[in-house]
């Protein structure tokens, strides 16, 4: 179990790094999906198959396909790759990377102080997730849904065309 976890974790970290550093956006997306899949495996190993499945359905399947759709629609020729290359020069990423390292250090310190999280308490089935969502976390769910409705209305507004405007 532990070996699988480390393997999945390594894949996740590596593919995330590759997702950031690939000049081709589609390649980057593919690595990102691999990363998401690896995280899904970790969730599964931690005893949360429900979350794992949704990670794949929603993030890897739905949202990433949408990303890919957008990338394909905009089209990425050699110019886009060149632009990416430009953006990947050390000068541009050194600053954010340094800040990221500070965060990482904080995280590590916090984890070491508190000790690793307790081993997962067995499988968390769909029923428990559902009960938690409509029980203690009901307010959070409702607020999130409000947010989504707002996003939906915004999208409709942006996508709407005036009468007579060429489609």
């Amino acid at each position, binding site marked *: 179990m532990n070996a699988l976890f480390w393997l999945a974790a390594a894949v996740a970290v590596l593919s995330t790094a590759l997702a950031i550093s690939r000049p081709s956006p589609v390649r980057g997306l593919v690595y990102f999906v691999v990363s998401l899949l690896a995280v899904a495996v970790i969730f599964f190993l931690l005893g949360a198959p429900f979350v794992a499945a949704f990670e794949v359905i929603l993030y890897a399947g739905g949202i990433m396909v949408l990303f890919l759709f957008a990338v394909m*629609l*905009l*089209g990425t020729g050699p110019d886009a790759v060149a632009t990416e290359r430009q953006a990947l020069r050390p000068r541009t990423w050194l600053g954010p990377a340094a800040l990221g390292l500070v965060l990482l250090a904080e995280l590590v310190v916090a984890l070491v102080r508190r000790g690793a999280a307790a081993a997962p308490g067995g499988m968390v089935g769909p029923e428990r997730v559902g009960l938690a969502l409509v029980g203690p976390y009901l307010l959070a769910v409702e607020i999130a849904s409000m947010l989504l409705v707002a996003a939906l209305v915004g999208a409709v507004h942006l996508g709407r065309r005036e009468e007579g405007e*060429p*489609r």
Partner: protein
Amino acid sequence: MEAPAHPIVQRFAARAVADEARDVPTFWIDAARIHEVLTFLKDEVERPYRMLYDLTAIDERMRRAAPGPPREMTVVYHLLSLERNQDVRLKVAVPSEAPAVPTATDIWPSASWYEREVWDMFGVKFDGHPDLRRILMPPTWRGHPLRKDHPARATEMGVFELPDERAQAEEEAMRSAEREPTDSTRILTLNLGPQHPGTHGVLRIVLDLDGERIVDARPDIGFHHRGAEKMGERQSWHTFIPYTDRIDYLGGVVNELPYLLAVEALAGIEVPDRAKVIRIMLCELFRIASHLVWYGTFAQDLGALSPVFYMFTDRERAFQIVEAICGARMHPGWFRIGGVAQDLPRGWDGLVREFCEHMPDRLREYDRMVMKNPIFQARTRGIGAYTTAQAIEWGVTGPGLRATGLGWDFRKKRPYGGYDHFEFDIPTAAAGDSYARAEVRVAEMWQSLRIIEQCVNDMPGGPVKADHPLATPPPKERALHDIEALITHFLGVSWGPVIPAGEAFCGVEATKGSNGYYLVSDGDVHPYRVRIRTPSFPHMQMLPAISRGLMVSDLVTILGSIDFVLADVDR
């Protein structure tokens, strides 16, 4: 030539040429005035000539005896007035060195392709034409093929070689310009064809797409060009008949009819009744066969896989009759100058009756399967629509014109070859969209069945070929009795008949629209000029105008609903 002088004479006092033209009033116009005359005829005259039916040219340098003004080349405009049900032919004499006339593209949008064709084939420049490029021949071609000094046979042209560099250059010449991107959208240029399952043959359409929406469509034709008109000039009057079958290769004998009617008009042959009815029966059988192919492939273009198989099976039944009568199926070459090749075989009426009894049920089933299908309707209604005025402007004839609500059918308006003896209706539809065109064609099959039934019931007796010295092949019986008849027969068979000098035009209602043959005879054993006016050519030209703003899938719908045949476009 007419009792009240033609308006053109009243207005321009142009010299009317009466001696050559048999059925179409013909006038010689100065190149400088042609634009003015065309505008007058289209817009100003009472009951105007709204349709530019044809535009072509004749290289006159080899003419032996041509009445009219001296000239080296002639540009010929053929206008059609639906209100008058009358044509007018305008001729413009031009020199063979750097000939030029003003363009008519600002009067008719449909003039564009016709003028490009005349430029391509004869080298006549049209001043002011926005895009005067070759249209049928490859852009790299040298010379203008329909000029008399251009060779007609490959053997006269030297050895054909295609080294790599030349192949490369030819391919490069085919490259189409990519559209410049606008501020908001990036245009995707998509090369549809010449090999594409949706184009029904070797047609290339360069599409400028915004997503899947068509910003512009640029048809590129000529891949199926076989020089039919040039071939006509080196075939005898008789041996050209099989070539006509292959112009609209789904129409079979329907193509032979306008050619032969024009030849018979030149020769002054009256076709016996039995031959007329046989001709009409076969034509209507071919109309059904052609419409069935259209029906099936149209459904298939929209993703319905099965109808095409049923319809081809039924077409096979029609072909069995054609085979029983002619021996051949798709291209029988069965009509002859003055009649048909042979009398009907024994038992033909049984075959035809069986077909007439069988088809109605099938057509009703296809109605349920295709025309009433909601997905089919959603795909075709409102797609590729145009009005009657637009259709006339673009030179649209046939079902495409009748789908706009105008019941114009040459069989009724100018009954040719004996159609006046038959009872049938002209189906029309109102919407002018792809669905309306489909409705009209389906209804036409019913009418064709009606005509065929009348043919079976009232088949007259008598000979199937005119007893006329110019009818082909000449009768053999008398040749065996006296030497004079033998010599005439020998010449008639080996050289072919000598058709008297003159010119004749005949347009018929073919399967796809109006097919017209304009023949010029110099009093020789072969035509001096064969002009084939096909319906698909102007229909194809209209494609960009009716597909802009629609989706790629709609383009396929439109292509299917136009019902063109590439050989009919390119000849």
